[in-house]
């Protein structure tokens, strides 16, 4: 008996040692020496002495644990979450739910053992009656370090399966409980694609018509978002929720490239700068509530914790449902009393509360969910617009909506009716004339010249003299010419070895050839200005919301300076420019991510501008184009303020598309990570400029996480096209033509020119 307790103490020591990562800790040293000391004399002790010794040592352990708990650093929390002893989803299914069946997996026999789906129920009692309330449980399974679970890093097909069963839950009208236990999604491009599947999940989850509750333990970036978009988001007190793993952040920060790894000190510092703890996230508004864990984090034997979790899960689900229930007077009373009971901390198991939603409640649920995310991250960017500006803006928008309605709905429908009427008359008349003259024409054959031939002299003149022609755009001349075209030097095509391309003269290549190798078609990167001035009608660009500015919301050390530098170098306030322009006379709304500004990374300011652009496009009935000159991903220095733009912007795109718009995405140079895995990747019409790359994680990150170097051109647009991630590959010089073509052939009803 005492043996077992003594061994448990040893395990507790090891656990502490692990989560502190061998950091020099006085308390730990004390414990170690006491353990050693007891260990040496243990065999000689009597049962009674053993009992006393172990008990006193246990007390010391409890004391030290409490002490360490207070001093835990963010990185310690990361280690807690990753420790194999930490509770995992299966433990929760066993201890929080009353019954469950795993769906679609038996150990390694699963499309993705890192993603677990279960149908479960929770039993509630009301008086003598028993109610089993069904939920769909979806989440990452870390399996206490089981290798097949891949640390909870979900494959694209794991996320696809998750989405599938969310749809099932929607059909069955039962709530969804998701558990986020992931260090990040597994970076493979194979169909359906890591990024594209996350984007699909976000796009769909925004409108899943049943309550979604998410519980975060380990919220690693994009992988977390794939199941984390929820009406209520709870977080375990020792968990973390971050834009990037602290190691990854440190690698970028320390500019480590395949050299020695970042130092532990730098990693600690990055972990703390990124504001990844539950407290941080609650303060920033990205989670709704913290569930307190036992000291040094919840492990399997913490049955009290499971009880608490059960209460919290029930409470949160009830709250979601209550919030959207109809406000019929007779129900309102009950609702109020029930809310009171919840607040009073009643045992939730004894509350009777149906989780079924009526169609109108479902509508409200979705509206609330959209409103919730729309309102996030408001503090994380600089918006110098005054109340008066916003009021004027609001007036404008109302005007656009009204004018659009009158012009395109009311008037055009009437016009069309009239046009249809005359059209029918015309076709009938011509048919009549044709029928009447047919025998005559047959008789005379071609003797009657067609009516349209002009008089001889005039016709001859037309065939032999100069005609009027206003050739607006001179062939081979571009409105914008790259500064790279001013250097007298040759440029080597990267494909010269395989395609035999000759070196080109920079002024030819970057000028007339628009940066395209004349031999193999390789596209050299061009400045975004090239697209601004060659893709859109001359003089048609009108920027809006230029004043919305990126800032350093986490006071991330050293980032203010970097941001200032980027602003000074580019003359822009964020990496995103939003504007209206036209292509061959068709107006459209554009948001552009510019690579020169912090790698085209997306933070709160960019996210807000993107959403505003989509809302403007929707109201003005314009097509919406995302021209991605390049994006390295979410701006890590903004932490979750950045990550949250993934669901935020994706939901905005969903609203825009549902309203009947046309959302086009055009990738250029390199586009990776969060944006591709959300608001870009969710578009049904994504195209890539030749020689550009689209993907989830760059080659370096892939090697880091999977240990295997991806093959060359792994992320090329042609590969992306073959995998079904994008819908076409465009030559830069034809982008204008193709965009015009796309606007004519694609998109929904809410377009002013349709």
């Amino acid at each position, binding site marked *: 008996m005492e043996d077992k307790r003594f061994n448990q103490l040893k395990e507790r020591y090891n656990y502490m040692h692990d989560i502190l990562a061998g950091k020099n800790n006085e308390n730990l040293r004390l414990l170690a020496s006491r353990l050693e000391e007891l260990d040496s004399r243990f065999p000689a002790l009597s049962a009674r002495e053993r009992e006393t010794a172990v008990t006193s040592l246990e007390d010391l352990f409890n004391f030290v644990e409490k002490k360490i708990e207070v001093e835990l650093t963010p990185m310690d929390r990361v280690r807690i979450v990753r420790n194999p002893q930490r509770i995992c989803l299966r433990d929760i299914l066993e201890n929080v739910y009353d019954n469950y069946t795993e769906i679609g997996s038996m150990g390694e026999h699963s499309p993705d053992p890192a993603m677990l789906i279960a149908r479960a129920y929770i039993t509630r009692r009301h008086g003598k009656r028993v109610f089993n309330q069904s939920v769909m449980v979806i989440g990452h399974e870390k399996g206490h370090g089981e290798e097949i679970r891949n640390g909870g890093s979900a494959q694209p097909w794991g996320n696809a399966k998750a989405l599938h069963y969310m749809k099932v839950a929607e059909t069955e009208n039962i709530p969804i409980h998701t558990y986020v236990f992931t260090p990040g999604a597994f970076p493979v491009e194979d169909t359906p694609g890591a990024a594209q599947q996350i984007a699909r999940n976000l796009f769909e989850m925004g409108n899943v018509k049943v309550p979604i509750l998410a519980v975060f333990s380990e919220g690693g970036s994009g992988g977390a978002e794939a199941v984390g978009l929820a009406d209520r988001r709870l977080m375990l007190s020792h968990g973390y929720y971050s834009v990037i793993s602290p190691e990854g952040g440190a690698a970028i920060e320390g500019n480590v490239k395949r050299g020695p790894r970042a130092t532990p000190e730098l990693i600690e510092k990055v972990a703390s700068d990124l504001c990844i703890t539950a407290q941080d996230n609650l303060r920033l508004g990205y989670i709704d509530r913290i569930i307190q864990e036992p000291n040094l984090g919840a492990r399997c034997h913490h049955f009290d914790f499971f009880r608490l979790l059960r209460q919290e899960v029930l409470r949160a689900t009830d709250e979601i449902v209550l919030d959207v229930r109809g406000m019929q007077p007779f129900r309102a009373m009950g609702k109020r009393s029930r809310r009171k009971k919840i607040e009073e901390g009643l045992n939730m198991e004894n509350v009777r509360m149906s989780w079924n939603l009526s169609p109108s409640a479902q509508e409200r649920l979705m509206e609330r969910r959209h409103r919730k995310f729309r309102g996030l991250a408001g503090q994380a960017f600089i918006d110098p617009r005054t109340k008066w500006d916003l009021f004027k803006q609001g007036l404008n928008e109302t005007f656009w909506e009204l004018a659009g309605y009158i012009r395109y709905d009311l008037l055009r429908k009437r016009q069309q009716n009239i046009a249809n009427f005359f059209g029918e008359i015309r076709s009938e008349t011509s048919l009549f004339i044709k029928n009447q003259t047919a025998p005559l024409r047959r008789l005379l054959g071609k003797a009657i010249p067609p009516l349209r031939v002009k008089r001889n002299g005039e016709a001859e003149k037309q*065939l032999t003299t100069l005609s009027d022609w206003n*050739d607006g755009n001179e062939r081979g001349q571009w409105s914008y010419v790259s500064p790279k075209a001013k250097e007298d030097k040759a440029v080597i095509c990267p494909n010269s070895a395989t395609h035999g391309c*000759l070196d080109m003269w920079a002024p030819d290549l970057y000028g007339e050839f628009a940066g395209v190798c004349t031999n193999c078609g390789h596209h050299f990167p061009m400045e975004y200005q090239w697209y601004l001035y060659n893709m859109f009608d001359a003089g048609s660009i009108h920027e809006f919301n230029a004043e919305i500015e990126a800032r350093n919301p986490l006071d991330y050390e050293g980032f203010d300076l970097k941001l200032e530098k980027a602003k000074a170098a580019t003359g822009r306030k964020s990496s995103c420019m939003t504007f209206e322009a036209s292509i061959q006379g068709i107006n459209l709304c554009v948001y552009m991510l510019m690579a020169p500004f912090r790698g085209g990374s997306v933070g709160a300011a960019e996210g807000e501008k993107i959403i505003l652009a989509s809302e403007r496009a929707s109201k003005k009935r314009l097509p919406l184009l995302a021209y991605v000159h390049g994006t390295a991903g979410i701006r890590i220095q903004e932490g979750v303020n950045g990550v949250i733009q993934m669901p935020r912007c994706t939901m905005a795109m969903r609203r825009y598309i549902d309203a009947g718009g046309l959302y086009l995405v055009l990738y250029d140079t390199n586009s990776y990570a969060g944006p591709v895995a959300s608001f870009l990747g969710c578009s049904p019409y994504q195209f890539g400029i030749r020689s550009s790359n689209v993907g989830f994680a760059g080659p370096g990150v892939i090697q880091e996480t999977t240990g295997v170097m991806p093959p060359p051109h792994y992320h090329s647009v042609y590969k992306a096209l073959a995998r079904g991630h994008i819908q076409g590959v465009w030559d830069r010089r034809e982008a204008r033509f193709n965009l015009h073509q796309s606007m004519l052939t694609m998109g929904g009803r809410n377009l002013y020119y349709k």
Partner: protein
Amino acid sequence: MNISDNKVLVANRGEIAIRIVQACRKLGLDFACVHTAEDAHSGHVRLARELGGQGSLYRISSYHDANELMVVADESGATAIHPGYGFFAEDYRFARRVMQRNRGLIFIGPSWRVIRELGDKINTKRLARSLGVPTVPGSDRPIYDEMEAEALAASLFDFQERQGIKKPLVLIKASAGGGGMGIEEVQDIDLFRSVYRRVRNYAARQFKDEGVLIEQRIRDFNHLEVQILADRNAKNIVHFGTRNCSIQSTGLQKRVEIAPGFDPGTITYKFDAQKVLDDITTHSLALARKVKYDSVGTWEWIVTRDGHPYLMEVNTRIQVENGVSAAIARVKGQSGIDLIAEQIRTGLGDPLGYAQDDISFEGMGIEYRIIAEDPDNGFTPWVGRIEEFAWPGTDKEPWLSLHTHVPTDQPYDIPTEFDPNLALGIIWGQDIKQARERGLEFLNNLKLDGQTSSGQRMKTNVEFLKGKTPAILQF
């Protein structure tokens, strides 16, 4: 600057490189030559070594690589580049680079803007029409509207019928196309619309431009040319008469060229041939003045059987057949004109030094292109080793000049990737009768033989040339 301070890089090979080197020598200019490893034994390499020493020769990776020419120009200290014909001769980007690079050079040819302006066929046609120069009936701009296209085609059929053409034809071409792609023929207006749509859709897919040109398809015509020469400032523009280049291979490659273009004194034509010759020279000069033409160039015309001339295009370079015009030209009564030397001299900035009135013409010239090919088999090129090449009996005749890069004293392997011309034989005669006789005498005495590695006998077009000689200039 005295032009003799210049050094010319000869950016070409074979016959034209030889002619340029010879012209440089004549003008007292230094020169540098390039060659590929494959061409190490070519005639131009031997001549350059003979006249300029090994130091005047540079081995390069490819004649098509402009960078090679630029570094060799810098390394050799050249101040000007002569592109010859083919390769970079009509590449305005090359001309622009030569001029605009940090170490600028003279491009011996028209200025790059002129090359670009006349390199665009639609632009050339519109320039011509703006001056009243006749062009092929049809559109002079891309047509985008189906109704307009159909109306134009209908007018064209009507126009041809009124001219008495039995089987009128209309061509639909993708305006952004080139190299024979996206061109279709229509015989009947009823078929027009479907053919039009095919071409338009092809053009939209292939060239991202739906525009088409609609023109009369002329089948029965003679191919004439006007030789133009102008000095660098385009102030003094003269012509060197006309040529007839109607004897061609099935692939529409020229095989025999005759100067002048018609012979109204001896041969009867259904139209006023002298007027046609006069008209096309006048028109060509007018257009040259309009674009400020500043080098040698050739205005290509087609003349229909009833004597309508239409301007087709302008070749902004020296042409293979320049020598046949030079053979009949006299400047201030002097023979021995060398158009390549004139091009280099004026290109480097020397004034022309004479006016149109100083130029006269005498006799008749025929140029034969001697080529290893099989005229009986679609003019398929023949590749192998030439073992015998000589023209005994006529080699001392003053009426013959023969230009070749093929050695006569040793066997020669024909390189596989270049212009197939082996030699140009230019014959001069007092009149057409004498020219024909001398031409046949030359061809009959020509010895040209060889075999492939598998022992097959050489094939040449000499018999084809003989067969065409009696009927030259008849139309």
